[in-house]
């Protein structure tokens, strides 16, 4: 089966500074793939390219056999890629429920709706009328994930879900991953926490200064290999 | 590889020479100008000088200080009125009263900034306009300076016309040179670099220990001084002042047009802009409303399509810079080694 999402020689720039130097990346349907790397390695930039927030060349990103690089974010979400952004970035002027409803703005059909989300994360139902930013960090992360799921994507991109959260909360959030993947959702997880990344994913890509420095099955890579790739030694 | 700090470009050295020649020509104008034309030329120059100084100050404030103000006319008029009051009522020599008026405007900027700095961005701009309106209404209610219909500068009566015109012209020339020098020196100094840092990224500048608020106040006061100077000079030449003329928002409107067309944030921008403005007003001002309409459209088009102004666009295309305020790092040519 061809990969659902593919990047081929992906380059990206912030103004004059180059952030990505030819990334090759493949994602099969139903997989959970982790992207690890130090700060500034280009992980977030990579996700932003996939979702259209950072300009990419048309032929560098492929979704279901269609070249989508550089398309407007609105067109990409309509084709089925959703992002849970780094730092949550909920809308402060909107309540929890309104934030979730915004996720459905693109109008894609699918299994995810408010009801199903409240089964996944009950807190979303309990606090649905509260201003979104009045929730705790972990709860906000659930809202952010829920908001992305509301667009019924086929590919879910998660940028640093564990950022600023306590270990027990991180575990709670990642425990929900199987339920999200139950219907064949494909997930990319960007993480600084290597142990968690290896645990939840089938394959791992390691980024280092804008390049893929290591790539393989999560279970097979040794700590030493990862360290070297992570730090570029 | 050694690196040398280069402060001037070839174009700037040429420009400096050209500027000095122009200055020499201008200073001796009364001597070589054709009979009958000298008076009108000098009068025009005084007017252009005021527009130029005002535009330069607006450019300093907006382009370098990051503060867009639609209320600089408050200081223009304030400087004018103080000059007139000192001349008419306090017996001060009006020519001396011009810099005094500028100083008064600078001092006035302190309480004004207290109010204005409570607003940001677009609302700061309109807020300064409101303050200017308050100042205008206040002066319109002062009967000692003629209230709403204004009054004349009587202190120069008794001086021969030619002498007065020459002296005013000389004063204008001095003011222009002083203003250009002031701005240029200010921006090339350490203060100036700090200002550029603030303009580029205020938060980062603050974290580097730069006193952002203090710098902004300094720029605001300097700009007020300049606008007050322009105002005092203008009414010295005009001999008659009124609240509507002194505090008209058109001063700021024209300054915006000049700076936008010439390019914001560059020293030479206002100079180019004022030349374009003056040339166009000579040819088209007979068309009144159409002329102003055209200016408005031009400003809109230039802002949207030529973000760096016409001069800035030229600069980018040909790499020219008359008043370099950047410091360029120039790698020294390594000596050939075998």
């Amino acid at each position: 089966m061809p990969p659902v999402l593919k990047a081929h020689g992906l380059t990206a720039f912030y103004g004059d500074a180059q952030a990505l130097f030819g990334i090759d990346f493949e994602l099969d349907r139903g997989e959970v793939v982790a992207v690890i790397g130090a700060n500034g390695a280009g992980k977030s930039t990579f996700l932003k390219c996939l979702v259209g927030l950072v300009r990419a060349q048309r032929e560098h990103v492929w979704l279901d056999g269609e070249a989508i690089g550089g398309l407007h974010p609105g067109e990409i979400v309509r084709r089925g890629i959703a992002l849970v952004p780094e730092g949550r970035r909920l809308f402060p002027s909107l309540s929890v429920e309104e934030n979730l409803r915004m996720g459905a703005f693109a109008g894609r059909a699918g299994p995810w709706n408010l009801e199903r989300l409240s089964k996944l994360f009950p807190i979303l139902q309990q606090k649905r009328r509260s201003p979104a930013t009045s929730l705790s960090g972990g709860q906000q992360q659930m809202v952010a994930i829920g908001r992305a799921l509301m667009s019924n994507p086929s590919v879910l991109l998660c940028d640093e879900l564990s950022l600023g959260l306590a270990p027990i909360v991180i575990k709670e959030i990642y425990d929900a991953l199987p339920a999200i993947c139950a219907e064949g959702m494909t997930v990319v997880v960007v993480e600084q926490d290597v142990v968690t990344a290896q645990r939840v994913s089938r394959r791992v890509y390691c980024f280092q200064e804008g390049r893929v420095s290591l790539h393989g099955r999560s279970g097979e890579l040794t700590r030493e290999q990862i360290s070297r790739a992570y730090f570029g030694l | 590889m050694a690196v040398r700090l280069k402060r001037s470009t070839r174009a700037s050295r040429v420009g400096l020479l050209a500027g000095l020649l122009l200055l020499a020509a201008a200073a001796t104008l009364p001597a070589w100008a054709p009979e009958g034309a000298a008076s009108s030329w000098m009068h025009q120059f005084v007017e252009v000088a005021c527009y130029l100084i005002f535009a330069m100050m607006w450019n300093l404030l907006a382009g370098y200080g990051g503060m867009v103000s639609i209320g600089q006319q408050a200081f223009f008029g304030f400087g004018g009125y103080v000059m007139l009051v000192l001349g008419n009522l306090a017996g001060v020599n009006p020519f001396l009263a011009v810099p005094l008026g500028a100083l008064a405007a600078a001092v006035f900027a302190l309480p004004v900034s207290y109010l204005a700095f409570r607003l940001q961005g677009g609302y700061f701009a309109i807020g300064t306009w409101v303050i200017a309106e308050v100042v205008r209404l206040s002066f319109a209610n002062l009967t000692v300076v003629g209230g709403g219909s204004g009054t004349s500068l009587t202190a120069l009566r008794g001086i021969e016309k030619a002498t007065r015109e020459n002296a005013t012209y000389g004063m204008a020339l001095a003011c222009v040179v002083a203003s250009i020098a002031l701005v240029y020196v200010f921006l090339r100094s350490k203060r100036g670099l700090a200002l550029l840092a603030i303009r580029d990224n205020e938060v980062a500048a603050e974290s580097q220990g730069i006193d952002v608020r203090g710098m902004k106040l300094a720029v605001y006061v300097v700009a007020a001084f300049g606008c007050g100077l322009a105002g005092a000079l203008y009414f010295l030449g005009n001999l008659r002042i009124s609240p509507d003329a002194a505090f008209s928002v058109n001063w700021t409107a024209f300054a915006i047009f000049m700076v936008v067309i010439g390019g914001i944030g560059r020293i030479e921008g206002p100079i180019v802009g004022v030349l374009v403005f003056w040339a166009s007003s000579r040819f088209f001002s007979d068309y009144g409303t159409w002329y102003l309409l055209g200016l408005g459209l031009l400003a809109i088009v230039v802002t949207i399509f030529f973000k760096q102004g016409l001069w800035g666009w030229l600069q980018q295309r040909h790499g020219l810079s008359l008043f370099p305020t950047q410091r360029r790092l120039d790698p020294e040519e390594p000596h050939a080694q075998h």
Partner: protein
Amino acid sequence: MLEAVSQVIVQGLLLGGLYALFALGQSLMFGVMRLTNTAQGDFIVLSAFAAISLMAILPGPAIAGAWLPFLGLALLLPVAFGFGYLLQRVVLNGTLGRDPLPSLVVTFGLSIVIQNLLLQVYSADPRSIDTAGLNTRSVELPGGLAVGVLPAIVLALAVVATAGLQLLFERTRLGRAFRAVSDDREIAEIMGLDARKVYALATATAFLLIAVAGVLQAMRTTVAPSDGPLLLLFAFEAVIIGGMGSFWGTLVGALLLGVTQQVGFRIDPGWGIWAGHIAFLGVLVVRPQGLFPKTRG
């Protein structure tokens, strides 16, 4: 004495209603896209003159009486909506960004263009809309207070408009889009929202209010091509006094401005507007965030 005071206050409130209509559009545009429209007042004057011209070609007041202007307004509304949409889409969208200068210069340029265009077409003479006496009719309330019918209609429209905007923002999908795009444009776009269209709809809505304000102003008093800047100042003062980010706050700010101006006017006719300026400066000193600011989470 009490009667005189209440009369002044009532008149101030009625005047404030008009100021609210001036200010709501500005509040909306600034709230959604941080755009300061320095041509706000001039667009109000433009719509007033458009209405005046429209009235000249509609069947005379003899047929529809005092309600003709409102018919004219109804015809003008879709035109204003479309105009605002195009203005934002074609001209103003390109000026948005971190730097406030481009939008300020462009709207200021528009202000100059509109004023001079109107001067060219209509000359400097003040004009107004024939209301067949509606603008002088008044009703006497219990207690001896006289309330003008037209000003009362204006105030009522202002309250309706404020409530309408509040509902639009809080209960509708478009309102959610407005709030989201103003919070975080990037993230709103990855939800599928087209910010350019949302901004254009915001401005289109603001222009509905501008049209209403223009027509009512021309019914209430005379308008001249150079009136724009003063109306802008009133709108702006109302927004600052009331507090940014809140439509009800803008309404209250406008009412307070109206009352302050009327009080000043009563003391001395030359002090009306001046008193409003002083009140604005006072609020700026004492409570710069305004009386009812909306705090962001």
